[in-house]
């Protein structure tokens, strides 16, 4: 006579093992593509915000070796000025937050050279580049 004492417990444990492993696999199969999607869309918030950002370099006034500029936020989102370049040379670096509809005057030193401002570019923290054509 075959003794079947405890057989149900063993079968139950094995069944539980199969169920839990299957469920873990399902969870992993769900997690991986989700993480992959997250990785793909991770930079999107910055790019999405960038599409709402728009600054205008309204006025550039050169006086001697100084240059006064007025930057206006004409976009739909607040922007933070991060750097300004005159003739490709960095003349200002910092953080100035501009709310929508807000403007700021900045006094900059024109880099030594021929004296005139050929190109002027404002760069924001999001990587937006806004030119003034002189």
């Amino acid at each position, binding site marked *: 006579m075959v003794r079947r004492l405890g057989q149900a417990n063993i079968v139950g444990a094995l069944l539980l093992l199969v169920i839990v492993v299957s469920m873990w*696999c399902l969870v992993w199969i769900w997690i991986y593509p989700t993480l992959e999607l997250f990785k793909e869309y991770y930079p999107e918030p910055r790019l999405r915000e960038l599409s709402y950002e728009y600054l205008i370099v309204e006025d550039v006034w050169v006086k001697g070796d100084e240059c006064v500029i007025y930057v206006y936020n004409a976009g739909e989102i607040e922007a933070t000025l991060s750097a300004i370049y005159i003739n*490709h*040379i960095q003349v200002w670096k910092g953080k100035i937050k501009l709310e929508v509809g807000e403007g700021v005057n900045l006094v900059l030193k024109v880099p030594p050279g021929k004296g005139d401002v050929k190109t002027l570019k404002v760069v924001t923290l999001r990587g937006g580049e806004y030119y003034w054509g002189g």
Partner: protein
Amino acid sequence: MLAITSVVSVILYLYVLSVIGGLRYSIIEILAPYEDIMIDDLWYKNEELHVYVRNLSGGVITVSSVYVEDDGATVSAFTDLNIVVSSNDVIELRLRVALKEGSYLVRVTTIGGSIAEKRLIVWSEG
């Protein structure tokens, strides 16, 4: 029981992943912070190239190399730079290089594999 099932399922899952293959990102790549850089601007004078590199990502990045290309050919390469740039910061790289008049492509790479490029026009000094 929980420990056994967890370990078994992880092993099984990794095995299945290796069998499936062809996945675009590894788990480590997915969990690693995203890197994003740009070249704000650049200029060249007196055999010195100035490159302004901006870190647009949330974490710290390390600039590893700068390449100067002329019509697809690398005319100058600066490797093993290992310059750390904080989040949302912009740094200036000063590189000694002799360039003739012309148009060049400047490429900056990071240890994490991010690349930023910008064109440099070198005018005659006269």
